[in-house]
Each structure stands twice: as C-alpha cells, then as structure tokens.
C-alpha cells in the first residue's frame, strides 16, 4: 500500500516536471492597474494612479515595469500647513513564480523593484506667529526640487478570475537608497513611495488582463 502511494507521488512529480518543460520561453504579457492608490486618492490627501506591464517567461520569471503618477494635496488643521506635489514615477524589477507547479493558473510571487521619482513640491502656511517678537511670518516654499531612489521587496499572489482577467495582491517592503529632499528640510509625500519616513510597508491590489 505504502509503495503504491510513493509510486503515485513520483508519477505526479514527473507530470509536473514534464508540464513545466513544455511551457514556452515567452509565454505572454499582462497589463495591470492598481486600485489601492486610486482609493487612497479618492479618500485621502494623497495617492497614485499606477499601471504595470508583466512579461511572462516560462511561467517562472516575470520582468515587471510599473509606471505611475503620484499626487498629494494635504492640509493639517493643527499646523495650518498645506503640501502639494504631483509627479510621475517608475519601477522596474523581476518577480519569480514561487509555486512548485509552474503550470498552475494561480501564482505566488516573490520579487524586487528599483524605483525612482523626480518631483517638486510646494509648502505653505498663511502665517506663523513669532512667539517673542510677535509678528506673523509667512511660511512658503515653491517648486522645491527633489528626487528619490528606493527598492521594494515584493510578495504577491494572483488568481485567474475569468478568461484573461486576473486579480492579485502584492505586499511590499520599501527601503530608500538615495534621495535629495531639496532646500527646505524634508519632504512629506513622495510620489510612488508614500509618506517619507513611515512608509516602509505598502501594497497594491491589481486588476490584471492577460494579453
């Protein structure tokens, strides 16, 4: 009985190996749109529109290109500061299908991205009162030029829903590798990265169309 089970397992393994061998090197393209950034934009002070292109190589390697447009128009009622920025950003990277059976319609990904954005921001306050001298000073900086380089480590899943339509999640751990915060200290929202300083974790919810 035990030898029968072992035999069945080895047949199954061989079938998977055979199926993996029959997958062509270039196995299609997929385009995706992120809904998390759109929701952030709709319900918060900042967010991003983002689309991605994923190349399928043997259902195993997936070079990924992501382009987005990040935007912030935030105001804090306590500090009376407003912050505005809008700029494109881009990411390039590679995902690996972590599923043992590469032929499976559902996929589990691990991967990485390199990302970059070049942006300008405006910050404004109608008046900061000098506590000693008593006068009101306008706090204003316009077109402060900045740039940001970062990497993201990605873990994700996606599943076939219907025909060419798939849905998937990714969770991302971000690390800044280089930056220029401009001339007035720090920045707040960085297009594509999120809030500077505390945006180490992020995620996307993707609607994917296989071409």
């Amino acid at each position: 009985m035990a030898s029968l089970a072992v035999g069945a397992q080895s047949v199954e393994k061989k079938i998977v190996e055979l199926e993996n061998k029959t997958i062509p090197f270039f196995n299609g393209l997929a385009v995706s749109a992120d809904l998390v950034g759109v929701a952030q934009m709709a319900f918060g002070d900042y967010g991003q529109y983002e689309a991605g292109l994923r190349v399928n190589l043997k259902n195993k390697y997936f070079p990924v290109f992501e382009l987005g447009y990040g935007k912030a128009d935030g105001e804090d009622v306590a500090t009376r500061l407003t912050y505005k920025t809008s700029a494109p950003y881009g990411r390039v990277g590679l995902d690996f299908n972590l599923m043992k059976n590469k032929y499976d319609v559902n996929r589990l990904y691990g991967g990485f991205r390199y990302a970059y954005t070049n942006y300008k921001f405006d910050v404004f306050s109608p008046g900061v009162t000098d506590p000693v001298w008593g006068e009101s000073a306008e706090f204003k900086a316009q077109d402060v030029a900045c740039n940001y380089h970062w990497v993201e480590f990605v873990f994700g899943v996606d599943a076939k829903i219907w025909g060419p339509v798939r849905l998937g999640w990714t969770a991302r751990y971000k690390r800044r590798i280089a930056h220029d915060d401009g001339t007035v200290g720090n920045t707040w929202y960085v297009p594509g990265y999120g809030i500077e300083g505390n945006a180490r974790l992020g995620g996307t919810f993707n609607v994917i169309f296989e071409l």
Partner: protein
Amino acid sequence: MRNWIWIVVFLLVLSACSSINCPLNNRVMTVYKLAGDVTPLADALTISTTRTNGTDSVLLNQAVNVDSFSLPVSYNRPQDVLYFQRQNPAGWSLTDTVVIEKQDFPHFESIDCNPSYFHVIKRVSHTRLGIDSIVINKENVNYDAKEAHLLVYFKNFYQ
C-alpha cells in the same frame, strides 16, 4: 493559498498604520558662550529686546554667574537688536546694544509638525561699554545646539 492571502491582508493592514515623526528637539536657539577672562560673569546679566508692538521683552532676567545661555531668534527679521545689561552688586549698570544680522530659511519636516525657521548669522555688531567683543563661532542656527554660535568676551573691570 488561503493562508498566504491572510498574511498579505495582515501586511496591508499594518501598512495603513502611520506615525508622526516630528523632532523632539524642535527649538531653534542661538547659543552664547562666555570666553576670555570673564567666565563666568559675576554681574547680573539681563537681556531684552523690543517687540514689534514697541513693548520690551526680557529674554534673560538677572542671571548671575552665567558662562553660557541660549536666546531665541526672530523668524524673519533681517536683524535682531538685543540689549545686554550688566548690573554690578554695587549698583552701577552698563547696557550694550548688540545687533545680529542674519538670513532666515523656512524649515519643513512634515505637515504634522509645526514649521520652523533656520538661520545663518552673517554679522554681529555691538557697543563696547561692558562687552569687549563678540565672535561668530558657528554661523548655522538650527536644531543642533551642542556647539556655541557666538563667543562673548566681556570686559574685566575687577582685575
């Protein structure tokens, strides 16, 4: 597969958390350090300035035996005018006028944090009744107050 989805959902919920990263030390002060023979200063030292509405504001009130002190900087005036009054226990007093010329730069941390101004001291001029000289030691005035910005040499009347 289902377990992985829950892990992803957990990570996304975690990513929704945010914190405010305002600096704990957010005071921008000029640090004055006494140098030369007179350190500490035995006389009572009072420092004041004139506010925009014409009233006086005392920044340091009759401090005795001081060897250093910190004073605020105006947010966006081209120069601050300070009055340094030395008062001897015998009753006489000497008041010097100190003019600090500076450039002001808005400093932004985050929209959650109160805005502040950093400064660069360009020039210091003063009368010479009780003060011998004032030397710029560090021109950038920001959150870092470890090093003295100005070295004050008081005249020694007690030798």
